[in-house]
């Protein structure tokens, strides 16, 4: 995690654990490949945010087709849900928009982890139940640099 004063930087360990738990619940209970990215994107202009989020989604590789990626940029105050073509059938844009709405209202109140977890629950509820999918090997990987 980040260096420096842990009190004003980043998600706490318990917050990360809660998000990890919510992510793995989506995989186990709903068979939905969900991934969450929390961090600002290195952009020249904020208008490129969607493309950058799409790139992160593409970086999921073979999983991307049926994966849902939630990108939360706390400093840029932007949130993006990117769904692959197969995932989009289970999580329609309308559902994604509702999840985004509940995230933005939670985030503006200062609740980062709670907003993400609630949104994941909404996505999972919409996706319905499917057989569990395997856990990815590196959950909660810290990314030092990207783009």
């Amino acid at each position, binding site marked *: *995690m*980040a260096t420096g004063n842990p009190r*004003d*930087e*980043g*998600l*706490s360990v*318990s*917050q*990360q654990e809660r*998000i990890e738990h919510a*992510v793995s619940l989506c*995989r186990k209970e709903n068979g939905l*490949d969900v*991934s*969450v*990215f*929390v*961090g*600002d994107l290195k952009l020249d202009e904020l208008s490129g*945010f969607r493309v950058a*989020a*799409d*790139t*992160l989604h*593409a*970086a*999921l*590789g073979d999983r991307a*087709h049926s994966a*849902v990626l939630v990108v939360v*940029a*706390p*400093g*840029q*105050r*932007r*949130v993006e849900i*990117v*769904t692959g*073509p197969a995932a*989009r059938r289970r999580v*329609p*844009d309308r559902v994604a*928009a509702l999840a985004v709405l509940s*995230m*933005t209202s939670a*985030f*503006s109140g200062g609740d*980062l982890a709670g907003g993400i977890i609630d949104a994941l629950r909404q996505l999972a509820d919409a996706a319905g139940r499917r057989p569990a999918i395997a856990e*990815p*090997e*590196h*959950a*909660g*990987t*810290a*990314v*030092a640099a*990207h783009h």
Partner: protein
Amino acid sequence: MSRAVTRLTTAGLTGLVTVFLTAAPAFADNPLGPSEGHDPGQGLGTVEALLTYAVLPLAIGLVIFALVMLPGAKANRYRPNKPWNAASVWFAGPADPVAAVQSAELGDVVRGGASGNW
């Protein structure tokens, strides 16, 4: 005339009898000993008074304050108007995020989703 006298007498007697009857217990001997307030006891000293009326309420207030504030002080609270300096975290992301992002190709895939800001 006699009717008015009778009325006045009745009213007066009723009042007096009621007052004395209801006041009677106050004059009764208390079989349990002196009633409360009978013996005021020793007054509070300055130190005791301060402890009881100043230190004790303050201490109770502090304990409640600590119980309320301590869990919040420990948790990292996100402030929407402050810059975000923490390293990025990718939950259930690719094994090697940096390499994966560098080699990522958008392709002509139609992606869905939604976006928002706050």
